[in-house]
């Protein structure tokens, strides 16, 4: 605690203007909150819901980046496939919530492993930018191929009937729904499970070792390729869950579904410090909250400007994001 306070004090001394702006912003926000506390609480609740969905996708970005230093642009589209898998499972085959979610996870994991094997693995030793271009290519391919008439068609689909019976409650004027609780619960479970996996198991240790230093990890007898594949599968499975939860909350499915949430989640991962798991989570919650508050109090059409400006400012203050490790940044 003492350390943290010290760090803040140093930071305030270093850049007083930015802290002043930050404090003013918070004060302004508090003023708005006092005017209409119910509305403010509603914004917060909605922001948290959005943030948890972003978090599930952001984790995939962050893990893959941490281990192979690749911005996996196809991740948002894997998220879309997860939504479709959940949709077909629940509406066509009448599966219930949990099996549908497991299916979405399996389908996404499988797809992601296939993409990794085809498009990224052969380029392990090529310049990094080549893999980035294939990632963009795979993203385009997934979006446009699935929009063909014999695949999913370009039409959007209403996600109904829902795997969950929708219920909502009014708590002191703030509307909360069972969907929100499910999103938060599933998100928390996934996060805790992931945390346990990465920091408490042998496999997790191998992942961290590969992320730290591949040649040495290989010398220590770790199957680097297998670990990388597993990381892709794990990230994609979380994206599958995220995809399903996203369309439960926003019940409309189309093949371009993943573009914007993918971008926002990616930004969230960067915001929190790409490569860091708690960072991705905090970043996603912040982005979700900032989006909702910006749209609510400032301008719903300038929302993206506000979110991305904040991103750039945070990057300028902390070049590797909130929780990023500076040591990893080369050059």
């Amino acid at each position, binding site marked *: 605690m003492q350390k943290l306070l010290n760090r803040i004090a140093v930071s305030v001394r270093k850049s007083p203007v930015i802290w002043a702006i930050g404090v003013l912003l918070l004060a302004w926000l508090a003023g708005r909150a006092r005017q209409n506390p119910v509305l403010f609480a509603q914004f917060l609740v909605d922001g948290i819901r959005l943030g948890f969905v972003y978090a599930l996708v952001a984790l995939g970005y962050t893990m893959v980046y941490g281990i192979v230093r690749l911005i996996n642009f196809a991740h948002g589209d894997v998220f879309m496939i997860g939504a479709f898998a959940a949709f077909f499972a629940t509406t066509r085959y009448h599966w219930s919530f949990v099996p549908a979610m497991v299916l979405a996870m399996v389908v996404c994991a499988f797809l992601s492993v296939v993409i990794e094997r085809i498009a990224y693995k052969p380029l392990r030793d*090529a310049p990094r930018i*080549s893999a980035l271009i*294939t990632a*963009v290519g795979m993203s385009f*391919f997934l979006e446009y*191929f699935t929009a063909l008439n014999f695949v999913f068609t370009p039409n959007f689909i209403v996600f109904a009937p829902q795997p969950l019976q929708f219920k909502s409650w009014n708590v002191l004027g703030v509307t909360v729904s069972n969907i929100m609780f499910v999103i938060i619960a599933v998100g928390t479970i996934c996060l805790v499970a992931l945390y346990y996996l990465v920091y408490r198991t042998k496999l997790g240790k191998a992942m961290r070792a590969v992320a730290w230093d591949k040649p040495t990890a290989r010398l220590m007898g770790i199957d680097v390729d297998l670990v990388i594949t597993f990381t892709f599968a794990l990230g994609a499975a979380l994206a599958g869950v995220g995809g399903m939860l996203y369309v439960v909350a926003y019940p409309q499915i189309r093949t371009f579904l993943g573009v914007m949430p993918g971008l926002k989640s990616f930004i969230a991962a960067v915001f929190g410090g790409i490569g860091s798991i708690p960072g991705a989570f905090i970043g996603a919650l912040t982005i979700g909250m900032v989006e909702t508050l910006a749209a609510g109090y400032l301008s719903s059409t300038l929302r993206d400007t506000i979110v991305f400006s904040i991103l750039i400012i945070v*990057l300028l203050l902390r070049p590797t994001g909130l929780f990023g490790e500076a040591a990893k940044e080369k050059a």
Partner: protein
Amino acid sequence: MQKPRFRILGQSWRFWAMVLLVFLVAQWIVMPRMSDFRKTAWIMFPCIMAILCLGLNLIFGFNGQFSLGQWGFYAIGAYASAIITYRFGARVSLPVEGITLQLPDLIQKIIPVAEMELFHFDAGKAGLLLLATLAGGLLAALISAGFGYVVLLRLGSDYFGIATLGFTIIVQNLLNNSDKVIPETKGARGMIGIPPLTSFFWVFIFLILAIVVLRNLLHSSTGRAIVSVREDEVAAQAMGIDVLKYKVLSFVLGSFFAGIAGALYAHLYAFLSPQYFGSEKSFDPLIIIVLGGLGNMSGTVIATFVWAITLEGMRIWLPMGFEAYRFVIYPIALVLLMLFRPQGIMGRVELGFLRATKWPRRAGTAVPAAPDVGTETAA
């Protein structure tokens, strides 16, 4: 140098004669035989795109700063110049009566026009376009100088890429709302009423200028400093090179190219909509320069034309009912090309006068053409 020789922008008269020849052949022999679609989509637009990509290649290919902001500066240049010509386009006019040649039948077989108009143009409009284009470029350069200085000071590699991607998205979002401040842009509804002033002459001139300026820059000591920053920042700094200065310099110059390209685009298509300047397309220039080979000027120009001709050509070549397959084939081709030729179409091979000829050639040390950026491999 023994004799003072005739040189413009460091190039001999032979070079400029060749440029003139290429221009005349294209203008009078090739272009009249092409449909409007092919003229625009296969010749003029790729020229504009090549200027844009050369700018990005300077930033990323030669200087090593991963940028996705090129598209945003392109938008800024387009809108800035369009606002100028929109305001003054109707008022400025100064027609120059040139000569009109009646062509004999025999020559008409080669030059398929009956009358050839020489020096027949509107000097006022040409001047306005030139002014607007430079203004577009300068505004883009100005904004990039401010943005670049602040951001490059703190961020490098991927984080710089992300910040610039954010910049592109912010520009699009602001353009969507711009009608509240600048009514003539009409915000998200799209800007109409831009005079279509861009002709093949202009895109050709600007492309050649871009190539020559970039080539001269890279073959100078400044260029070597720019490349050295890409190769190893620490070593460059140790050699007394002001790393930040050269980063900002190439970023500003690259954005200037983007602004010029944007201005030419605005007056070619004569309609601007923020829809076109979205983040999805911001990857196009990046894709092109990687396809052509990073840090390779001839590769960039060739790749631009290959990219545009294939992508737009598929509109003609694909049978009816398969229109939607254009964007299925394109990413597949892209991925395959990257898998089999990760160093790009041209790799390290520069063509013609773009090659580094000033230095004695040692085995494989063509200096500016070494795309070693990002060879810090993925695994």
